[in-house]
C-alpha cells in the first residue's frame, strides 16, 4: 500500500513538472499587477461589468463597450483557469482548443439569451448553449449524455418552449417593436452583482489551489479505482460479462471466476478465469479498453446502483403529467353554490332545483 502511494506521489511530481502550453498564457501577462489569488475575482468582476453594460437597453455605444469588456473578462477567466490546471495534460502539449471553443459558444449563447429582447431568439440561443454543452460532454467522455442532451433538450423541451412562446406571444403592434417588458430589464445592476458574487464564489471554490490539488490527486488516484468499480458492476451482470470476455477470447464458453482485486496495483490488469469451447480453462487479462462502451456503462450503473432513483424519476414524470393536465384544463368560473353542489354538500340557497343541473 505504501509502495503504491509512493508510486502515485511520484506520478504527481511528474505531472506537476509539466508546464502549461504557451498558447494559453498570453492575456494574463497584460495584467501582472493582480495577485494570483485575486486574479479570478478580478476577471469575474470585469466580465460582470461588461454584462451590466450589455444589459442597458437602447444605448448602442455602451453595449458595444460592454461586449468588448465582457469578452476580455471571459478570456482572462479562461486563461487563468487553464493556467491553474497543470496535472495530467498530455505530453504532446496539444493546446485545449475545443474546450475553449465550446466554452466560448456556451458563454455567448447564455449572455445573448439573457440580453436578447426577443423571446424566440432567447430560446434559439439556449439551443446554442445546449449544443455547446453537449460538445463539452463529448470532451469529458460522456457520449451518451451528450446525445441525450441534444435529443431531450434541443429536441423536446425547447420545442415545448417554442410552442408556448408562439401561443402566448402578443402580436407586435406596428411601429412599437418588442414588448417593453422584454426590452427593459428589472434591476439589472443588482442582478449582475448577485451573479458576480455567485461566479466569484464558485470560482474560488473550484479553482483555489487546495481544490485544484485535491482534484489533481483524486484524478490520478481514482483512475484505477474507477476501472475496478466498472468491472465489479459488470460482475453482477453475467451475460454482459460473458460478452465482454468474448471480446478478448472469442471461443469463451463460460466465465468461471473473476479477480479484480489486483487492479489497485497499477501494473496489473483485471483477470477472468474462463472455460473455452473445448473444455480447457484459461486466464484472460482484461484491458480497460474492453469495458463496455459509455452508453452501456451508464445503463448498467443506472439499473444496478440507482433502481430506486429510476422509479422515483418515473413517478416525478407521471406527477408532472397529471399536474400539466390539471393546469391546462379549461378553467370554468364557478360560484360558491356550484362548488358546494359538486362537493355533494347542501346548497346554501333554497331554490328548489336539484344540484348541478344548471
Amino acid at each position, binding site marked *: 500500500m505504501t509502495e503504491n502511494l509512493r508510486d502515485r506521489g511520484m506520478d504527481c511530481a511528474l505531472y506537476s513538472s509539466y508546464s502549461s502550453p504557451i498558447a494559453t498564457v498570453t492575456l494574463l501577462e497584460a495584467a501582472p499587477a493582480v495577485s494570483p489569488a485575486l486574479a479570478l475575482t478580478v476577471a469575474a468582476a470585469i466580465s460582470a461589468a461588461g454584462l451590466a453594460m450589455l444589459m442597458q437597453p437602447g444605448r448602442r455605444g455602451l453595449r458595444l463597450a460592454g461586449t468588448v469588456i465582457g469578452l476580455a473578462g471571459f478570456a482572462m477567466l479562461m486563461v487563468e483557469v487553464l493556467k491553474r490546471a497543470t*496535472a495530467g495534460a498530455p505530453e504532446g502539449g496539444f493546446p485545449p482548443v475545443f474546450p475553449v471553443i465550446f466554452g466560448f459558444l456556451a458563454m455567448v449563447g447564455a449572455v445573448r439569451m439573457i440580453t436578447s429582447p426577443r423571446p424566440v431568439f432567447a430560446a434559439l440561443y439556449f439551443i446554442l448553449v445546449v449544443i455547446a454543452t453537449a460538445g463539452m460532454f463529448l470532451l469529458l467522455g460522456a457520449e451518451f449524455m451528450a446525445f441525450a442532451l441534444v435529443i431531450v433538450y434541443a429536441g423536446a*423541451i425547447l420545442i415545448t418552449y417554442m410552442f408556448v412562446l408562439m401561443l402566448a406571444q402578443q402580436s407586435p403592434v406596428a411601429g412599437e417593436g418588442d414588448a417593453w417588458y*422584454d426590452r427593459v*430589464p428589472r434591476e439589472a445592476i443588482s442582478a449582475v452583482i448577485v451573479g458576480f458574487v455567485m461566479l466569484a464564489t464558485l470560482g474560488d471554490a473550484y479553482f483555489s489551489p487546495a481544490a485544484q490539488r485535491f482534484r489533481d490527486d483524486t484524478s490520478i488516484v481514482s483512475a484505477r479505482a474507477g476501472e475496478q468499480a466498472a468491472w465489479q458492476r459488470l460482475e453482477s451482470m453475467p451475460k454482459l460479462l460473458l460478452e465482454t470476455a468474448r471480446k478478448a477470447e472469442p471461443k469463451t464458453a463460460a466465465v468461471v471466476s473473476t479477480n479484480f482485486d489486483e487492479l489497485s496495483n497499477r501494473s496489473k490488469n483485471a483477470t477472468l478465469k474462463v472455460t473455452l469451447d473445448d473444455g480447457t480453462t484459461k486466464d484472460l487479462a482484461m484491458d480497460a479498453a474492453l469495458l463496455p462502451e459509455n452508453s452501456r456503462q451508464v445503463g448498467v450503473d443506472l439499473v444496478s446502483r440507482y433502481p430506486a432513483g429510476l422509479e422515483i424519476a418515473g413517478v416525478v414524470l407521471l406527477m*408532472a403529467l397529471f399536474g400539466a393536465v390539471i393546469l391546462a384544463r379549461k378553467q370554468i368560473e364557478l360560484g360558491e353554490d356550484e362548488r358546494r353542489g359538486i362537493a355533494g354538500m347542501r346548497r346554501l340557497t333554497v331554490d328548489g332545483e336539484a344540484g348541478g343541473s344548471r
Partner: protein
Amino acid sequence: MSNMMAQTINTLAVTDAQTVNAALLVSAILFACGLIGFLSRRNMIIMFLCTELMFQAAALAMIAFGNIHHDISGQVFVIFILTVAAAEAALALGLVVLLYRRRETLDSEAWSELRETA
C-alpha cells in the same frame, strides 16, 4: 492520414485537467448567467428558460466531477437532472399559459400584487 486522425482523437479523448477546469468554469458562468437572467428578465417564459440554463450548468458540473472521480454516476445523475428539467418544463409552461390567459400578458410584474406590502 487516418492513423494521424485516430491519434488526434485519442489526444482529444484524454481528459486532462484543463478540459475539466474549462468545463467547471463554463458551468459556473452558465449558472451565474441563469441566475442573472432569472432575476432581471420580466418575461415569465424567459425566466423559466433561465432555470433550464441553471440545470444545464449543474449537469455540466456533475459530468466534470464524475470525470475527475472516474465514476459513471455523474452521468447517471444527469439523466435524473434531465427528468426533473422535463417535468419542470411541462409544469412551468402549463402555469405560464394559465397565467397568460388570466392577464393577457407575459410580464411577471402583472402579478406583483402577490408580494407582501412594503
